[in-house]
């Protein structure tokens, strides 16, 4: 898709000339696409406080518009993402971040899934080993295996 924009512009131009219609390529609301990309990335991580549960990127609320404008301005001033985020948190608190900061009160949040995963797999291994001790895996003779397979096929259908 990288080369496409150039081609697109060519196509658009050709279409315009061929059509003989005077019309311009629509002006992006942003003057700079890179700025806009960063704006989207940052504002997707921020909660719009007046809305029910929407990001500043998605919301059409007035405050969200203002904050997008503010972020755009800060990007223009050369602020880093970190600085912009700090700006928001200083005013609205951690509540504004959709990605909660890692701190003692969120250790359980960030660690929880991985502890669950480790615990779950650990329990599984423990359980399988104990079960194997209780009932050793069946070592079947060839005949028994055939018989079992036949039974299983029966129940499969």
């Amino acid at each position, binding site marked *: 898709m990288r080369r496409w924009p150039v081609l697109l512009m060519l196509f658009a131009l050709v279409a315009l000339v061929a059509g003989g219609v005077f019309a311009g390529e629509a002006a992006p609301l942003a003057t700079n696409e890179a700025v806009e990309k960063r704006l989207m990335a940052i504002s997707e991580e921020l909660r719009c406080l007046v809305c029910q549960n929407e990001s500043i990127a998605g919301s059409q609320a007035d405050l969200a518009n203002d904050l997008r404008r503010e972020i755009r301005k800060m990007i223009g001033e050369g602020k880093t993402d970190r600085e912009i985020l700090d700006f928001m948190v200083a005013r609205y*608190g951690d509540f504004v971040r959709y990605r909660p900061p890692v701190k003692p009160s969120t250790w359980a949040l960030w660690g929880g899934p991985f502890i669950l995963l480790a615990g779950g797999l650990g329990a599984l291994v423990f359980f399988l080993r104990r079960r194997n001790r209780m009932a050793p895996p069946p070592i079947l003779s060839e005949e028994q295996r055939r018989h079992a397979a036949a039974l299983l096929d029966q129940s499969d259908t």
Partner: protein
Amino acid sequence: MTPELGHFALILAFVATLMQGVLPLIGAQRSQAQWIALARPAAQTHFLLLAFSFACLAQSFLANDFSVAYVAQNSNTQLPAIYRFAAVWGGHEGSLLLWVLMLSGWGAAVSVTSRQLPEVMVARVLAVLGLVSVGMLAFILFTSNPFARLLPAAAEGSDLNPLLQDPGLVFHPPMLYMGYVGFAVAFAFAIAALISGRLDAAWARWSRPWTTAAWCFLTIGIAMGSWWAYYELGWGGWWFWDPVENASFMPWLAGTALIHSLAITEKRGAFKNWTVLLAIAAFSLSLLGTFLVRSGVLTSVHAFASDPSRGVFILLLLGVVIGSSLALFAWRAPKVSAGGAFALVSRETMLLINNVLLVVATGSVLLGTLYPLLIDALGLGKLSVGPPYFNTVFVPVVVPLLMLIAVGPLARWKQADLRDMARRLRLSFVLALLAGIILPQLMGTWTPMTALGCLLAVWIASSTVFQIVERLKIGGGSAPTSFWGMHLAHFGIAVFVLGVTLVGGYQEEKDVRMQTGDVVSVGGYQLRLLSISAAPGPNYRASVGEFELSKNGRVLKTLHPEKRQYFSSQMPMTEAAIDAGFTRDIYVSLGEPLDQQGAWSVRVYFKPFVDWIWGGCLLMAAGGFLAVFDRRYRLRVKAAASLPASATA
């Protein structure tokens, strides 16, 4: 008069369900045939009364009876008839009525199709369903009566929330509730088995088709909700990790785990305790979702108007239903036998890993959803847990799960041969690797995430296809429908994963300012704004844009996105216009008028393969339905009862 009849039917239904919930249970304990025999007629009466009550409410809506408070709050004379009907479940009270109607419907269905099951079992199952319904009906009658009169009657209704005035409302909630409530059947089978102390493979076989059917409805319901949000909210996302979405996703994840563990329990008589616990969990999470959505403890895009007294009632209900089930579980589970033995490498182990991963995924979603509440309850401040968190923790859990889809079905029960499995996966492995390298390049840019997604999709899809081919060779061209069902569902996951990957990696988005005649290019397409004009609607006025979609100078289509202003609520609504296609959607939504010269802000998206997301979900559901109709579930009880003996031997 109609509302009073409806209310009366609701009260009678409450009485019927009390009988359904209590008498057969006592009868089953004391082996009293007459009381046992009450279960079926009570369940059917219960359903008919609720259906009548529901019809009364629908009639009040269609007749614009604004002397009914609920109708006055959620309807309007200008509202089109189809939405007046769907508005029945557009608010809290009516949607609860739909909830119990569906619960009674599932109960009636069990009562009709369970001739081959032991009478005592059926009596207990229907009784448990009845008891759940008693709680919900009490909730409706005491806190949320949809038939409450408004005196004096309102001259005009205050209208249905404009967000809900959409075909999505007609289908999405009924499907979703069918799923939520359907898990009550699996739950009832589990509780009935616990009460009887007869937890065996036959129980698993009986509850399997019901669980799968509920899961299918839930899958469709969630997919429709996602699609609705996609086109209605105007910013083209398909999943937001909103608490209400999570509330539907958690039972889905637990239900998926349940479907798989039921397979072990049915085939091998193993892990009965675990399966029972999952059945309780799936329905408990449905109930928890009901609580989260209706109590106002979490902020969400789609929450109902909340009322703390209702929250207290649902919480009590939650405590009684789930608490008593888990207590029963703690009492009965230690006596349950272990079931058939198996080797470390076997289908059983594969399914167990699947279960562990799915349960961890459920737990993670639960943790993230409730964490703001936990932190607040502990007085540690306010937090938001949103998409960046869920995406970060969910992916590492789900990737191994997806990997396993290709491997699991290859493993034999009891004891599988690793070398044999590796041999059969070789080609899939190569194809997946190639897909991971090449597909992202074809789409534009290679990134690790898109490579991973393409790799997983092809890994699952190819392994699934090879297994079908293998089976057809061996089986002489035929296989049971449940075999097709499983592979179709797995293939659906591959389609879903590819859709998610490609739209996530390669969508294009443009925010532009447009005047008549302006052109915007996105994803190789051009959109020209022809006009924006005012147009009247039945209960709103709209600004309708006319956009000409073309590619390489060839005009394909005209698109008409709208910005609506509803009269009654004065709420502005964005109706996006979408040109949906097999490989891409073009999505246009109108923003705001920018100046007096007629310029508007316009958002356009190019969304490659986005429809594969919902297509994949539909394939999953279709696979589930195939499995439901497998012949073996319709076998007589004797054949089923002989199974545990052979399986646990």
